[in-house]
């Protein structure tokens, strides 16, 4: 198992260096998005409206955090099932999304879109929140606060552990 430290945003040529099952320790910025946020992002793109953050070269983390306890950087975090986002993913890739982090397999359509747009799908072990929070430098609600756990959070991470699933 190769272990590689990477900084986000990734350069296109970096993605080509990885092989499936490499362990990546990621540092940089992730935006969380799960079902409801995907629905909204997709609607905005279809209506030609601006997105709340620059999707090009960004990394999405399929995650709905628990509330942050006092004195902590963030609440419990971890990946949710990526397949639920499959329906929305090709359009996001077409609009520049480069890295996705979640758990479980992707559909054939998404896999082909990942190849086509030279993107990267990583899995992160589910059910290890206490360990993952150690890699979180900061976490704040970025937009759509009314969605609570399903809002978009901006997370700064350091050596966040993932494995390459699809390139």
């Amino acid at each position: 198992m190769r272990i590689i430290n990477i900084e986000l945003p990734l350069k296109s040529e970096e993605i080509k260096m990885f092989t499936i099952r490499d362990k990546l320790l990621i540092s940089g910025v992730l935006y969380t998005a799960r079902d409801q946020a995907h629905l909204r992002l997709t609607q905005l793109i279809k209506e030609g409206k601006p997105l709340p953050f620059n999707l090009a070269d960004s990394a999405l983390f399929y995650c709905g955090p628990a509330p942050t306890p006092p004195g902590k950087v963030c609440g419990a975090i971890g990946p949710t099932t990526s397949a639920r986002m499959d329906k929305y993913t090709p359009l996001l890739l077409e609009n520049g999304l480069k890295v996705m982090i979640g758990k479980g397999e992707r559909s054939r359509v998404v896999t082909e879109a990942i190849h086509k747009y030279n993107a990267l799908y990583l899995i992160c072990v589910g059910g290890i929140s206490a360990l993952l929070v150690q890699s979180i430098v900061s976490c704040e609600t970025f937009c759509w606060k009314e969605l609570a756990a399903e809002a978009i959070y901006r997370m700064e991470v350091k050596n966040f552990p993932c494995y390459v699933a699809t390139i």
Partner: protein
Amino acid sequence: MTYIRTISKKMIYDAIIDAIGQIYCQSTPETIAMINNALTIEEDDVAKDMLKAMLLNEELAAKEKLPICQDTGIVVVFADIGTAVKIENGSLYSIISQAVTDVWEKYYLRDSIALEPIRCFSSNPSKTKDTLQPVILHLSEIPGNKLELHISLKGGGAENCSTLKMFNPTATINEIEDFIVDTVVSSGGKPCPPVFVGIGIGGDFEQCAILAKRALMVPISPFEKKPEYKKMEERLLNQINQKGKGIQGFGGKTTALKVNILSEPCHIASLPVAINIDCHAHRCISITI
């Protein structure tokens, strides 16, 4: 002569707060032992790395009282009520729901309930509760003057991989076993393997599903089960693990940690089979009041 025993609201409320306070930050000791065992037999380096992360997480979460998973789940309770028990002041549901609401705030657990399941039917689609958090409660009667509560924090990812099929009564054991193995294996990494597989066989449509859920949660005495079912559990566990889906669906020797079957009589026209899956973050506890 049996005396009616009155159990106070406070006793039940406190017991639930205490029970959930124990399980949100730690899988059952049996689960941790099984993950340790999976690590011992594993040869794949990525699978080993993931299993070590799970074990380290269990240690950290228990020590720092952090949730083992951000999906702190929906609360499922099987309440077995002694026929000689009277519950003081209010319904069991309202007491449990109040305790769950309060313990959720106490430990910063995630509100994961959509009050309206079809989100676009609500003007506030992210509403998780009115004043109290909804829970799933299954009631049944037992002899005596005790109240037994089997409590689980059930995550959504594994629950989504669960299924139920109404077989013909002449279905072969092979057909039933293939259905179970295919269900678990085709779930891949979605339910966060290594998983627990609860199987309900018999009953009717809903009883079968309830049996499958209960099979995940409740420790069963080996003497209460026919040897045929115990052999079937062993075969299923072997078949599932031989397919090699492995840890998080990323390969390895252990896809399932345990298969547990519960059965009940059924209609002569039917043979319902339900499969309920739980992740490795197996948060269950049984308490007696």
